[in-house]
């Protein structure tokens, strides 16, 4: 590198680092345009976080996690919700609310910028550092379990109902869920054949790639049990990619795929799965038992009972001699 000392440092810098010059310009613009609306700030007591239950129902709730959002809305407190996260997609009106990022990559400061009177978050909230910060700070936060079982859901509903001062609504909601689940259970007991084996795909296999299937300890496995079936994928836990060969080997009676806009399956990919010649030997294909369900059946929120009934109806068509092969109800 030859340096002519006649040049000023600045000129040397700019000549050699045009990228940096551009970045500096952008940074300046950014700095100048950063005059957000200032809200009046709430007062925090910096002692140990205690949610004040005497204060009645808080307004300005931020819900993080699909199940948390759905529970608050199901209890009729939707008008108190100020912001939600990206995983909250139901009921439809939550899409109009401000976003604080995705449940698994939450920025604590982003949540605080929404000025929350109460945060209701599922245990899925991440990264761990964000959770630690939120626990350290004196932000009134109700932590719900990351719902994987019926017990988790019941606990969440009662805790939120208690927090929002809506015990009757909470009881009623729990009763509804319970009755839907027991309806699915009794339906399953009346089947003439044995329990069908079910394989659930988060992403169905295509001609070129295997799919993401739910193994043991996954929400889909729990839902299959609730609907009266058995999970075909027992060799692994959680959601894992499986090859076409493994699907042939598992040979499920029923294949269910989660449909959602954005990711998961679409009616086209499900049709491609039905038409895949490699899978023609699989029972589910031969029985024409490949179904699509809304992917948020796996949210494990207040609609868990509905989801169990929907899956139960699908399995009924296989476990009871067919009464016409209609597809399960698909929600847009």
């Amino acid at each position, binding site marked *: *590198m*030859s*340096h002519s000392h006649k040049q000023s*440092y600045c000129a*040397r*810098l700019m000549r*050699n*680092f045009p*990228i*940096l010059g551009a*970045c500096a310009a952008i*940074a300046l613009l*950014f*700095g100048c345009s*950063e*005059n*957000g*609306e*200032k809200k009046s*700030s*709430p*007062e*925090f*007591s*910096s002692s140990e976080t205690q949610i004040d239950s005497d204060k009645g129902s808080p307004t300005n709730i931020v819900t993080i996690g699909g199940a948390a959002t759905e529970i608050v809305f199901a209890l009729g407190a939707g008008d108190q919700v100020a912001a939600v996260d990206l995983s909250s997609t139901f009921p439809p009106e939550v899409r109009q609310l*401000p*976003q*604080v*990022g*995705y449940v*698994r*990559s939450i*920025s*604590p*400061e*982003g*949540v*605080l*910028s*929404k*000025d929350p009177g109460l945060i209701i978050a599922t245990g899925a909230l*991440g*990264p*761990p*550092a*964000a959770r*630690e*910060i939120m626990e*350290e*700070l*004196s932000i009134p936060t109700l932590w719900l379990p990351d719902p994987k079982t019926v017990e988790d859901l019941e606990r969440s509903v009662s805790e939120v109902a208690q927090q929002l001062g809506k015990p009757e609504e909470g009881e009623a909601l729990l009763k509804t869920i319970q009755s839907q689940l027991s309806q699915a259970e009794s339906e399953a007991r009346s089947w003439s054949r044995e329990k069908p084996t079910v394989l659930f795909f988060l992403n169905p296999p295509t001609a070129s790639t295997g799919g993401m299937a739910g193994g043991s300890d996954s929400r889909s496995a729990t839902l299959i049990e609730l609907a009266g079936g058995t999970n075909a994928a027992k060799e692994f836990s*959680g959601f894992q990619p499986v090859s076409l060969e493994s699907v042939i080997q598992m040979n499920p009676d029923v294949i269910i795929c989660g449909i959602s806009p954005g990711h998961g399956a679409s009616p086209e990919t499900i049709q491609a799965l039905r038409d895949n010649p490699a899978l023609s030997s699989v029972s589910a294909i031969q029985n024409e038992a490949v179904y699509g369900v809304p992917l948020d059946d796996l949210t494990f929120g207040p609609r868990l009972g509905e989801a169990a009934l929907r899956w139960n109806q699908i399995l009924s068509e296989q476990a009871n001699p067919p009464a016409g092969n209609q597809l399960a109800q698909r929600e847009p």
Partner: protein
Amino acid sequence: MSSTDSSKSRRTPNRRAKHWIVLAALSLLLVGVAFWSLGSGAVSTSAEEVWTGLTGDGEDSQVSLQEVVIREIRLPRVISGILVGAALSLSGALLQGLFRNPLADPALIGVSSGAAMGGVLALVLLPLTLTRLAQANIQTPQALVDFFDHFGLPVFAMAGAVGLTFTIYRISLVRGRINVPAMLLTGIAANAIGGAFVGLLVTMFATDDQLRSVTFWTLGSLAGSNWTSTLHLTILIIPCAFFALRYDRALNSFLLGEAEAFHLGIQVHQVKRAVILLSALMVGITVAFCGIIGFVGLVVPHMIRTVFGPDHRLLLPAGALLGSILLLIADVFARTAVAPSEIQIGILTSLIGGPFFLALLLKARKGASSIGL
């Protein structure tokens, strides 16, 4: 910074004064950028609030949201940013001095991958081993468990970085000279193996949450900073940086070549070992706490060299300061560009550093710099 010596460079009082002026200017800039960084984020804060957040009023009964955010979220993050930026630039400058080549960047030649391998090994296998031992009814001393809980990750990451740096150095040293293509190719191999290793461990052993933090290992972030991690960073980085700064004159003599440095009375082997160890330790620490943040170690020393020349007595301290400044600026972008979410800072540094690296290569083709390719 250095005692008297006349053989290595003509040091006039004038030059010395210039060094101090540059360092003072950079320090002032760093303080300014730190304040700007404390004042920007998803929650809007005024300069006044930044000040009260920093000083506190002692009356801790009612604290405003802004104060909490500044004191508990932004301040540790800014301090971490300063430490990590300095450590990355210093390790980049040390490696470049050792390899006598401006392309040696920790992330590029694979040191960061080594650290990530070690880190993921600690994340996945330590808990697994402990549960296995417990299942086999073998008692592990509680002190050991506590130590690994707190320091297992950085210790493993540092070990991975050190091991890999020594390997790369041995492979690229051909007949007493550094072979640059060998160095870069070793880096490619190390990155490939490291990435595969991280992926493999994660798919085989990791829980869902660990799986989701893999992006953290491949693209760094300062989002995990809290007072505990900042304290650990300080304890680990400050001594390394202090020792690194003492090798300025030795690295100056390395510019001439190892044999020449030896004849100047430099303990060449001792210096090499120390430089490898220090740079790898610093990379290991930053990777353990913040994941892989690439290109800072490449860009910053190069900027200093371009503007102020290759004298390590200025390059090391000025590089440390500039590294902190640039990382803080990048972090402000990471926090504000898509608020209320965040971008990973590693994405930003690679976005800027990647083209920069290409520009260096293009320049080298025109014969304008001494990259040695």
